[in-house]
């Protein structure tokens, strides 16, 4: 069974335009904004420029999720596939909304990478179980980044948008964990504070 090991996870995050350091996820961005490299440093001074860079980092996550669910659909059947199809649509909605916000803020939205580049960075996925584990891991990466990113956003409306996306990703995790287990609530809603740090 293929698993998202620490080493291939790092590679996957690199390709996604993200970096993971010392257990915390920092939006690294991959183009456009000069101040994106500073996003991993805890800093209470929020600015509109940094807001834009954070949203562009979030866009990288969403583009990666779109690529992952696109790959995953071929491995899934039945109810799980129907959930994944809806999640794919929702990730596309997130990406479109974030790209629109970056544009309205005067920035250049980060573009999705070629599908092959994502595919090469993903772990080997041989079936439904592999994909469910990988998708849970990926959703948790996003959740972790959003929980850390929200306090850094200056604009309250942007915080609301990101929180509404975070909450959708949290629901995805619950459904994915349910598909991997017998559906017991303890297995699908694991922690009272959703941080994305729970193991997949």
């Amino acid at each position, binding site marked *: 069974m293929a698993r998202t090991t620490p080493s291939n996870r790092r590679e996957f995050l690199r390709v996604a335009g993200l970096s993971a350091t010392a257990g915390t996820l920092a939006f690294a961005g991959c183009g456009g904004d000069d101040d994106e490299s500073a996003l991993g440093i805890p800093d209470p001074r929020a600015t509109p420029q940094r807001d834009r860079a954070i949203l562009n980092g979030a866009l990288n996550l969403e583009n990666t999720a779109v690529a992952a669910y696109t790959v995953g659909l071929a491995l899934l059947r039945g109810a799980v596939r129907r959930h994944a199809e809806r999640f794919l649509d929702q990730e596309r*909605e997130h990406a479109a909304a974030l790209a629109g916000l970056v544009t309205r803020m005067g920035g250049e939205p980060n573009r999705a990478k070629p599908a092959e580049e994502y595919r090469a960075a993903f772990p080997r996925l041989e079936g439904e179980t592999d994909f469910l584990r990988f998708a849970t891991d990926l959703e948790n990466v996003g959740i972790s980044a959003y929980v850390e990113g*929200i306090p850094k956003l200056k604009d309250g409306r942007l915080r609301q948008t990101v929180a509404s996306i975070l909450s959708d990703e949290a*629901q995805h995790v619950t459904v994915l964990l349910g598909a991997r287990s017998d559906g017991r609530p303890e297995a699908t809603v694991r922690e009272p504070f959703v941080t994305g740090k729970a193991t997949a």
Partner: protein
Amino acid sequence: MGDREVVLGLLALEQRSVLVYDQLVRSGKLSGSAAAAAELFRGQERRHVDALTQALKGMGATSLPKAPSPQDARGDVGELIRLAAEHEMESIRAYYEAHAKLRSPALLATAASVMANEAQHLAVLRQLLGRDPSPVAFVTGRG
């Protein structure tokens, strides 16, 4: 409205959340996954109450809202779960609004992680009602 007032409002809501799930647990009407969910979620709502209470104490608040008195749950299992789902929607709306008002980074991080947990509760409750657990891309507690 300052952070303290926002958190006071959220605490009152979380206290009601504990009550909602406590009523479900004590009703004796639930079984299987529904009973397990009610018990699990009651415990998680208590953790939210504890966290917000600590945050308020850290802000120097001396007067905290009192927990509402327990009441008997009325209605069949479906109605009870629907009521819990409606309450979760109200909680999510409150946290969504709080994200625009809160200033403290630590409180924002807590609010984000709690809102996501309430969204998960809602997903499970919707599944118990035979509905789509995640029907919208932007979870705001509306619609």
